[in-house]
């Protein structure tokens, strides 16, 4: 091979390497763009959900027991705006308010404040957020737009930060629906999952890796664990329905059962990750400990597991993150449900964030679209927080040799 041939060969190799690097970069850029557009679109859609429109009403007293709350509210607003319409017009007026506003007004009549701020209906909410200044009117008619304009001119329409979204539980009225119930439900469920799956998974992995004799049985178990990690999650839901609800008779829809089902789903992931982490600990560590007279149990718990801990935690968090996003197995055990109160404990009926997203996305009311996006944002933040904890723990326990 003369010099020219060698140069040509070298140039070709360099070219190939450059192309490979460019290709790699392109895939990263592509993935980045997709992720950015996804999060961007969710963010843009979610922003309106964080503001809330309220209508201020002057409270009329004394409250009369004969007049139903709806009538009382409609008359109060008429008086406040100097209107005098018939029942049909009052009905139009009431549609500016949330379905539960009359009850809130009645409660305010019993109190002492002069005015009360009531939730506007989702139609008003959407109109002010999206159609203001356009020719579109959304679902409001001419008369209702006039009323709304009057309320606005008199300074009775307020826009504020939507604290109710974070403090309230699910509601069929998009304007007052909140994420707290699902958030707390997710917390309880994840707690159960962690408390069951983490110790069981780590113990199983430690036994299989450090103590179990290598024979056909242990190979068989290993193959099964690997297969279980790939089983579709709905199967675990069916298993949970039978074992936890029908045989053990645990309460339906409870975070306890949800957590147990998700724990079953997460277990194989944790076992596999833990075994990989244990394998990565150099044999010299074990030998050194044994040489100093440590018993097998001491070797494992004093030396091997602490060194493997960062890997174990990473695997656990990956498994937990997958469990956090599951809805399919929860359908079977009754957690895909309308639950109006945040759960107080693991045996109370609960729902979780992804289920809440699913239920809102399926609702006819268009105002739920922005709530859905906002809920997705909350779920992503939850996930991010979980990962942050994992990174922190890993950094804390990480050792080098």
């Amino acid at each position, binding site marked *: 091979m003369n010099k020219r041939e060698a140069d040509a060969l070298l140039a070709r190799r360099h070219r190939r390497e450059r192309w490979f690097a460019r290709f790699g970069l392109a895939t990263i850029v592509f993935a980045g763009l997709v992720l950015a557009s996804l999060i961007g679109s969710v963010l843009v859609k979610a922003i309106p959900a964080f503001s809330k429109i309220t209508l201020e009403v002057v409270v009329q007293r004394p409250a009369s027991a004969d007049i139903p709350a709806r009538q009382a509210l409609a008359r109060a607003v008429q008086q406040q705006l100097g209107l005098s319409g018939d029942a049909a017009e009052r009905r139009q007026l009431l549609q500016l308010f949330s379905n539960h506003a009359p009850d809130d007004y009645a409660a305010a009549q019993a109190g002492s404040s002069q005015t009360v701020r009531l939730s506007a209906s989702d139609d008003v909410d959407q109109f002010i957020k999206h159609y203001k200044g356009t020719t579109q009117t959304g679902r409001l008619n001419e008369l209702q737009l006039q009323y709304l304009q009057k309320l606005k001119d008199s300074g009775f329409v307020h826009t504020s930060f939507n604290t109710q979204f974070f403090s309230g539980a699910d509601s069929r009225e998009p304007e007052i629906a909140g994420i707290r119930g699902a958030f707390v439900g997710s917390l309880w469920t994840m707690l159960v999952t962690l408390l*069951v799956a983490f110790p069981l998974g780590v113990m199983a992995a430690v036994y299989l890796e450090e103590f179990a004799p290598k024979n056909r049985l242990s190979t068989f178990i290993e193959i099964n664990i690997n297969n279980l990690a790939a089983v579709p999650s709905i199967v675990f839901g069916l298993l949970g329905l039978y074992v936890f609800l029908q045989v053990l008779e645990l309460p339906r829809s409870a975070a306890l059962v949800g957590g147990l089902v998700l724990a079953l789903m997460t277990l194989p992931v944790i076992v596999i990750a833990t075994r990989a982490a244990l394998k990565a600990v150099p044999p010299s560590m074990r030998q050194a400990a044994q040489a100093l007279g440590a018993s097998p149990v001491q070797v494992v718990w004093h030396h091997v597991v602490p060194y493997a801990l960062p890997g174990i935690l990473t695997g656990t968090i990956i498994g937990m993150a997958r469990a956090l996003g599951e809805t399919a197995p929860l359908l079977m055990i009754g957690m895909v449900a309308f*639950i109006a109160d945040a759960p107080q404990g693991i045996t109370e009926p609960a729902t979780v964030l992804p289920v809440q997203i699913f239920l809102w996305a*399926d609702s006819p009311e268009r105002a739920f679209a922005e709530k859905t996006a906002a809920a997705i944002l909350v779920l992503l933040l939850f996930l991010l927080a979980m990962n942050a904890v994992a990174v922190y723990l890993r950094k804390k326990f990480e050792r080098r040799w």
Partner: protein
Amino acid sequence: MRLKLVSLLALSVLFSNQAEARDQIRVVGSSTVYPLTSSVAETFGKRTGNRTPIVESTGTGAGIKLFCAGVGLETPDIVNASRGIKDSELDDCKKNGVTAVMETRVGFDGIVLAHHKSDKAYDLTRKEVFLALAKEVPVGGKMVANPYKKWKQINPSLPDQEISFYGPPPTSGTRDAFVELVMDAGCKLVPEIAALPESKQRLACGTIREDGVYIESGENDNVIVQRLQVNHHALGIFGYGYFDQNRDTLQSVKIEKVDAEFSNILSGAYPVSRSMYLYTKKQHFGQVAGLKEFLKAYTSEDAVGEEGYLIEKGLIPLIPELRAAQRAIVDAEESVQERGQTRENSGGSPKKN
């Protein structure tokens, strides 16, 4: 510490096993009725101080299975249904000891065919919809794979436009109702099919083509609505409540020259609507707190009346006499079994009232 928590968990498992009278109503069933029942549940919880009932969205069939699994506080009290309960399901119920089931009708749900507003409005007959969607249609006296690609081929007065549908998958109750109310009804009007033996007829009427003209779009009606925003020539099939929320962008198709409007569905003039039902375990009265009160609230004028709060949620109410009849059923605690043979079984249209 960890051990303590685990043992706590085990303890709570033991405690939850205790059976006691429930203070929270449990509802399962149809995803179509879910928005209505959960709305009543929420209002009921707020106004009466009872615990807000839990409403699960499982689908009608799965809901009835859960409901019929037995009597006892671990089974649901009410099932939402977007069709009438079948006799075979009632038999199942009976086998498991659920011998007293109360049937109350909630109201109607219209099924709407709609397209984007930018497309020119046109109307269809059920026969035309059948010819557009059937897997096999008669051409020259023989059943052949559906050859129609454009509306104009079916009827020269229809637009020169590709036939394209977004609709629910076979697992959906909306699909069942669509097949029953549109496809079956339309196909009876085709003489070649009316001449077929009954078993073949059913197959010919109920089978939707699979060559890409009808695109199954999942159980979520909002997905169909969104597809229509992009594909302006396509027709979507979904519930009236979803159409009502998206009137500003969607245009409904008249069926047999009747608009899919509130008043037309109410009067029964619009042919594609079905009844929605609640089935309640009478045996749970007195065991579950507030069960009868909940049914009373559900059948009250305040909820299901012409100005009730469910109207905004897309409910088409029953006629006043029928609403009164539902309240009477609740008051008398009359079960299907006690009523005997008079029970109307089909979903049916308001005309059958």
